[in-house]
């Protein structure tokens, strides 16, 4: 043992000294923006590459990023994005795993900005990460474009200068679901919810429930189930839902939980007793294929995926993605596309105005309040003083299995315009719902 000890001492001593040296070597500080056009635009992309959120959200987003970056650099994206790269400069994406919790993500954001010296960061699916990282972006004066997290709090709590969000927040899912379900069942009497027991689930359910009660007072909530996130086993909850017999069951479940819930409830016939509303259902449509129950309301957190409009840009995006990844793009991929194309538009507009490579301030000025085209249709940065996007929302009902696309078709699709399902500038979502949706323009 003494001989082994001598041997390992030297090894660990070297390791420790090397690591201490690594700590002590100062690299240069600075988050300076370059002056003439840089060689490349370094973009940090933060999304879940491991863990349960990788397969439904993180990987599709990453795939979309890869696809777009390559296509942009090669000039293959159709109009109006035919210019190569971003304002002529090729894009280099640096991928970071969003796993590890908010504390880890704050450290990684700082590393991206201060050590990797990226020009901007596109990222964050988890609301906790968004909320933790946004103030750090302000502190470091680094441009952050959030592409997927659902919390409505970001721009309702305070104003940001360096932070943008290029997609609508979860209020549009919940209010849209409420309006849709009341169109589908105008004589609705009872609702129930089964949502994961954390902020996303709690927020989604509260907004949906309050919206329904506001639009049709007198509806009764028969049960509110909140199983643990990633519980996976829902037999007791399904029993409770069957016993209470609500007409509509709302769920904001996602990923493995949603699939497990559907797999477990299908043979028990829950979908035939109650109308299930799956606000993130688009992500499971291609995966469950034939095993998706019929008569289920499916959302895509906006006009994405199966509910995306049939434009030239969308056709190109869908085909390119499917050809490369053998599966059609789901809504997180669309969200990432919105972020990338928004950034591109902002940089190019800023460049056109300034004549040379724009500074960060000029990019921000150009980004605020713009409208730009995406595979999901036009996106307008209308809230949060031009930093928060609004978009329409679409819902449909699963009708028949389509052997060509290998998934269920959606019928009775209704698209609610952005002004119908997003609060107006200056009002928080909770206020907007409580006051009965002032200034909403619905068909």
């Amino acid at each position, binding site marked *: 043992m003494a001989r082994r000890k001598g041997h390992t001492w030297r090894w660990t001593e070297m390791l420790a000294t090397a690591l201490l040296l690594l700590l002590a070597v100062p690299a240069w500080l600075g988050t300076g923006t370059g002056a003439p056009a840089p060689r490349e635009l370094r973009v940090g992309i933060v999304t879940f*590459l*491991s*863990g*349960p959120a*990788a*397969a439904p959200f993180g*990987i599709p987003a990453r795939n979309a990023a890869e696809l777009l970056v390559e296509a942009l650099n090669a000039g293959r994206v159709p109009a109006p994005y035919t210019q190569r790269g971003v304002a002529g400069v090729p894009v280099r994406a640096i991928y970071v795993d969003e796993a590890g919790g908010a504390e880890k993500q704050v450290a990684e954001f700082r590393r991206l900005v201060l050590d990797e010296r990226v020009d901007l960061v596109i990222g964050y699916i988890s609301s906790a990460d968004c909320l933790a990282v946004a103030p750090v972006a302000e502190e470091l004066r680094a441009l952050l474009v959030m592409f997927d997290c659902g919390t409505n709090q970001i721009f309702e709590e305070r104003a940001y200068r360096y932070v943008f969000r290029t997609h609508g927040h979860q209020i549009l899912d919940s209010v849209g679901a409420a309006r849709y379900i009341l169109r589908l069942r105008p004589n609705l009497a009872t609702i129930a919810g089964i949502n994961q*027991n954390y902020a996303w689930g709690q927020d989604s359910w509260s907004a949906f429930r309050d919206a329904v009660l506001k639009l049709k007072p007198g509806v009764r909530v028969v*049960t*509110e*189930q*909140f*199983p*643990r996130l*990633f*519980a*996976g*086993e829902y*037999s*007791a*909850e399904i*029993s*409770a839902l*069957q*016993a209470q*017999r609500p007409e509509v069951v709302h769920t904001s479940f996602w*990923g*493995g939980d949603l*699939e*497990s819930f559907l*797999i*477990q409830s299908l*043979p*028990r*016939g829950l979908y035939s007793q109650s109308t299930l509303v799956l606000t993130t259902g688009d992500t499971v449509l291609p*995966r*469950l294929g034939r*095993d998706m129950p019929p008569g289920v309301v499916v959302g895509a957190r906006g006009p994405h995926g199966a509910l995306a409009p049939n434009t030239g840009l969308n056709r190109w995006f869908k085909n390119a993605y499917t050809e490369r990844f053998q599966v059609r793009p789901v809504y997180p991929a669309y969200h990432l596309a919105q972020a990338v194309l928004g950034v591109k538009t902002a940089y190019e507009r800023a460049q056109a105005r300034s004549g040379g490579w724009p500074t960060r301030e000029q990019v921000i000025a150009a980004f605020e309040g713009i409208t730009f085209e995406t595979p999901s249709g036009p996106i307008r940065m209308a809230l949060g003083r031009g930093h928060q996007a609004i978009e329409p929302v679409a819902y449909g009902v699963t009708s028949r299995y389509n052997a060509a696309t290998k998934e269920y078709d959606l019928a009775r699709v209704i698209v609610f315009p952005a002004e119908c399902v997003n609060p107006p500038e200056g009002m928080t979502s909770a206020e907007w719902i409580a006051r009965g949706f002032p200034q909403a323009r619905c068909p």
Partner: protein
Amino acid sequence: MSTAITIAVDGLVFASWLFLVSVGLTLIYGVLRILNIAHGSLYALGAYSAATLVIAWSGRDLWPGGTLLALLVAGAVVGVAAGPLIERGVLRWTYGRDPVLQLLVTFALFLILEDAVKLLWGTSPYYAYQPYRLLGQVAVGPVVYPGYSFLLLGVAVAAGVALWLFLARSRFGRLVVAVIHDPEMGTALGINLTRVYVLTFSLGAALAALGGAVTAPMISVVPGIAVEVIVVAFAVVVVGGLGSLPGAALGALLIGVVRAAAVHLFPAVELFTIYLVMAGVLWLRPQGLFGGVEARRL
């Protein structure tokens, strides 16, 4: 009244699932005195293996009942393959050391296996629901249960009884019990301790994998299922008493019924039920319901 029946049935179904996923843990602790955090990883390995086997079998238009057998096979294969590897390869170096050290070794194993599973099977989900659909439905009042839930109940009872018979009646089982009580005396009497340890660990691993295998048809098998199961299995085992088989059964029953009651009557507190039961039992009876009181050296 019908709510009470529903709670009872739900409690039993959940309890059988709990028992299957925790019995391996308590067995390993009982014999090797190691609290195996990698238990969750063995569960995940079982789930993924079962999913792979079921998907392969279903793709071939063979007798559908074979998918049920595939679950058992998956559990056995993982136990036989991973068990001796882990026990001889890693754990044997920790015998006789501080129990916390052993715990941390299993924690390191858990981290390694988490990513190993991800590297082997990728991050996409696996669906192996064919066995789940095989057995039709059973209506109990307004609630419809899949036949599979009752199969789960049957498997849990069968596993429990088989283990008990094995430990109480078979020759090897009695050797194991002897080793549980006094390993040194066992060696003195000529029992091959190494053989007992390897076989017991493999059995525990196979049980963990079986737990995962029978769960696979009910869920979408994704990365991350190991972490959730560890907490649940620990709670059951601690409540029942570490190392006790009837304890695991009773612990599973207690937690299962309490949780089912919470889901039907107070869904808001469902999240806490497991920890509250655990803290409550530990307060009243620190060694768990059936745990033996350990003597202390003076």
